[in-house]
C-alpha cells in the first residue's frame, strides 16, 4: 500500500517552492525504492508553513514545514514515511491551535484533497446542498437564504437574500448569475483559495443560485492575476459537465445551467459590480449609475445576481442544514462565520475562519503571532486599500460590520494587513491617493482629478508647505470625493487618508493641530 503524502499546489505555496519540493520528494522516494503517492491539494491557509507536506499515518496527517528542497533527504533519513520526528515536524496538522481554534464551514475542505477530485469532494460533504435544493421549490430556497441572514462577502455586506428575491421576482427571458472573482484588495486571498482549493463548492453555490432565481447562465469574472484559479475553474467546470451536474437537464430535473469563465485584465475598479458588468460586456470598466440595480437590469440589461465568491460558496453552509443555525453564529447583525485573511508584516499569515465577534487583537496576536519582523506593531489596514488604518489603541474592537463602521473603519472582504513601526504613514496616505489615480475608471471628476490633487497636496504637507491650509484642503477634497463619487473607488479613498492623518500626524511632519 502506498503511503499518501499531501503537498499543496496552491499558487502561494508554489510561489515559495512547493513544486520543487514535490519533485524532489518523488525523486528521493524513487531513489530509496519507497512506495509513495503524492496528492496535490489546495492550501490549508497556514502560509508561514508552506511548502507544507503532510504524511497520512494511523495517527492522522502529520505535517512538516516549511520545507526546502535541501531538507528532503534528511526528512527521508528521519523516517518521513512513518511520520517520524524531525526538526521541521509540526505534529498532527488538525490539532494545530491555529486550525483547531477556527470554526471552518466555508473552508472545511481546505487542503484536504485534490481540488479536482469530484469523488473526494462528495465524500467531504459536497453536492449535498445541490441535491437537497433540486428537490425544493425555488421560493423555499430564496426564503432560506433570507432567513439565514447571509450578507454579501465582497465587502458591502448587503443582505444576500434580498438580491435573490429581487432577481427571482423579475419576469425576464434571460437571467444571469455573475460571480465577482475580481479579488483585487491587497491583503485578501480567500477567494483565490476557494477557486484554487475548493472550486466545486463555488460552482455548486452558483448552480443553486441559478435554480432558485431562474437563471440558466453563469459567468465567473476572474482577475487575470489569478491564472491558477482560472485554469482550475475551467477544469472543474469540465468535470461537472461530464458528470451531468452542469449543462442541460441537471440530475434529470429539467433545469439547465452552464458556467463560463471570463478573465479580467488588470483593473481594480472592475471589482465594483457595475464596472464588472461593463467588462463582461467587452467594454471599458466604467461604473454605472444605480438605479437600475443589477438585480433588475444587469448584464446586457437582464436581471443579474452578482455575488462574491465567498457568498456563493456560503450557500452550502445554509443548505441543507437549518438556516437558523447559520443565523445563530456570529455577532449582532453579522451572522455566520467570516474568513479573515492575515497578511503583510505578520508572523503567521493565513486564513482564519471564525464567527463574527472575534477581536482584532485575537486575530493579530493570538492567531497572527504579531509582526513578522518582531518589531513593534504600528497599525493595521482593515478591509483593503479603501479601508481605514487602525492603531494599537483600537485592537479590542470586535470584528463585525456594524462595530467597525461605528469606529470609522471597515470590515470589507476581511483582509487584515499588519504594519510595523518602520512604515511611514504619510507615504501610505499618499499611496491611497496614488492608487485611486491609477485605478480610477475616470468617470467622476472628484475621483479622477481629486486623487491626483490629493497626492500632490500630501507631498506639500510632508515638505512643510502651508501645512494648516493644505490640511484644510485635504479635508475639503476628501468630503468632495466622498459625496461626489459614484462608487467606493473615489468615495472611500478618504478613509485610509484621513485615518492615517488622524492617528499618525507626526509621520506627516505636522507642526500644526492634526485633523479631528
Amino acid at each position: 500500500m502506498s503511503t499518501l503524502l499531501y503537498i499543496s499546489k496552491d499558487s502561494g505555496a508554489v510561489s515559495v517552492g512547493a513544486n520543487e519540493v514535490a519533485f524532489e520528494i518523488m525523486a528521493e522516494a524513487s531513489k530509496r525504492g519507497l512506495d509513495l503517492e503524492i496528492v496535490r491539494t489546495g492550501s490549508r491557509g497556514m502560509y508561514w508553513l508552506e511548502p507544507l507536506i503532510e504524511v497520512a499515518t494511523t495517527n492522522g496527517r502529520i505535517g512538516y514545514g516549511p520545507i526546502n528542497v535541501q531538507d528532503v533527504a534528511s526528512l527521508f533519513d528521519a523516517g518521513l514515511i512513518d511520520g517520524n520526528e524531525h526538526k521541521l515536524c509540526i505534529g498532527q496538522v488538525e490539532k494545530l491551535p491555529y486550525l483547531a481554534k477556527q470554526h471552518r464551514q466555508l473552508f472545511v475542505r481546505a487542503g484536504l484533497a485534490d481540488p479536482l477530485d469530484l469523488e473526494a469532494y462528495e465524500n467531504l460533504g459536497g453536492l449535498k446542498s445541490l441535491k437537497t435544493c433540486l428537490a425544493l421549490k425555488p421560493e423555499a430556497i430564496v426564503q432560506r437564504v433570507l432567513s439565514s441572514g447571509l450578507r454579501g462577502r465582497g465587502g458591502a455586506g448587503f443582505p444576500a437574500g434580498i438580491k435573490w428575491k429581487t432577481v427571482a421576482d423579475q419576469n425576464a427571458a434571460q437571467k444571469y448569475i455573475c460571480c465577482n472573482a475580481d479579488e483585487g484588495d491587497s491583503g485578501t486571498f480567500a477567494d483565490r483559495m476557494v477557486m484554487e482549493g475548493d472550486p466545486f463548492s463555488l460552482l455548486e453555490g452558483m448552480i443553486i443560485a441559478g435554480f432558485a432565481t431562474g437563471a440558466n447562465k453563469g459567468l465567473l469574472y476572474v482577475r487575470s492575476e489569478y491564472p491558477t484559479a482560472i485554469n482550475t475553474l475551467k477544469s472543474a467546470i469540465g468535470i461537472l459537465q461530464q458528470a451531468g451536474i452542469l449543462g442541460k437537464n441537471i440530475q434529470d430535473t429539467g433545469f439547465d445551467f452552464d458556467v463560463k469563465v471570463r478573465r479580467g485584465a488588470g483593473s481594480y475598479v472592475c471589482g465594483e459590480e457595475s464596472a464588472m458588468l461593463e467588462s463582461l460586456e467587452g467594454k471599458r470598466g466604467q461604473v454605472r449609475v444605480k438605479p437600475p440595480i443589477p438585480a433588475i437590469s444587469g448584464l446586457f440589461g437582464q436581471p443579474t445576481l452578482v455575488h462574491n465568491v465567498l457568498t456563493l460558496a456560503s450557500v452550502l453552509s445554509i443548505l441543507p442544514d437549518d438556516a437558523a443555525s447559520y443565523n445563530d453564529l456570529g455577532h449582532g447583525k453579522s451572522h455566520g462565520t467570516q474568513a479573515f485573511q492575515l497578511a503583510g508584516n505578520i508572523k503567521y499569515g493565513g486564513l482564519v475562519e471564525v464567527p463574527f465577534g472575534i477581536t482584532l487583537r485575537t486575530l493579530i496576536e493570538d492567531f497572527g503571532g504579531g509582526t513578522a519582523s518582531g518589531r513593534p506593531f504600528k497599525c493595521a489596514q482593515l478591509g483593503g486599500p479603501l479601508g481605514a488604518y487602525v492603531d494599537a489603541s483600537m485592537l479590542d474592537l470586535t470584528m463585525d460590520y456594524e462595530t467597525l463602521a461605528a469606529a470609522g473603519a471597515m470590515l470589507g472582504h476581511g483582509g487584515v494587513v499588519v504594519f510595523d513601526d518602520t512604515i511611514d504613514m504619510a507615504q501610505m496616505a499618499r499611496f491611497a491617493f496614488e492608487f485611486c489615480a491609477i485605478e480610477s475608471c475616470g468617470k467622476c471628476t472628484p475621483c479622477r482629478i481629486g486623487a491626483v490633487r490629493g497626492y500632490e497636496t500630501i507631498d506639500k504637507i510632508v515638505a512643510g508647505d502651508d501645512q494648516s491650509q493644505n490640511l484644510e484642503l485635504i479635508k475639503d477634497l476628501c468630503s468632495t470625493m466622498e459625496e461626489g463619487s459614484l462608487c467606493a473607488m473615489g468615495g472611500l479613498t478618504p478613509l485610509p487618508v484621513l485615518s492615517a492623518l488622524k492617528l499618525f500626524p507626526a509621520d506627516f511632519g505636522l507642526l500644526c493641530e492634526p485633523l479631528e
Partner: protein
Amino acid sequence: MKPSEQNPLEEAQICAQYANAPDALIEILHDVQTKHGFIAESSQIIIAEALNITRAEVHGVVSFYDDFKTSQPAQLALKICRGEACQAMGANELLSQVKEIAVGKSISVEPVYCLGNCALAPAAMIGSKLHGQLNSGNLDILIGGAKK
C-alpha cells in the same frame, strides 16, 4: 513583419472562436496578446472589423486595461507588487533594487497591484512565475534563473 501582416487570418480565427461576439473582446485581446506578445494596431483593426465595432471602441478597451501592451515586450517582464501588504514587507525598496538590476538589459519592470499572495509578501511575477517572500538575497538568483 507585424503579426497581422504575417497572417491576418490568426486574429480573425481567434475572433471566430468566440463567434465574433463583441462581449468577448477582452478574451480575444488576451488570446491575441498570448500569441504575439502584444496587440498591434493592425490587429486592432482586424478585430474591430470581425466584431463589427469601431476601432475607437477596441482602442478604448486596449488602453483602459493594464494587461494589454501595444508594443513588443522585453525578453523578461518583472511585475513587482506594490499592494499595501507587500509594502508592509519592503516592496518599495525591492522595486528600486529591481530597477537597478534591470538597467541595460532587456528586462521590463512594472509595478502591479496585488497578486493575491499577501501572506507571503513581498510578491512578484518574474516572467510567468509567481514568487513570494522575496528579499535582496534571492532576487538576483531568481532573475538570473529566469533569463535562461
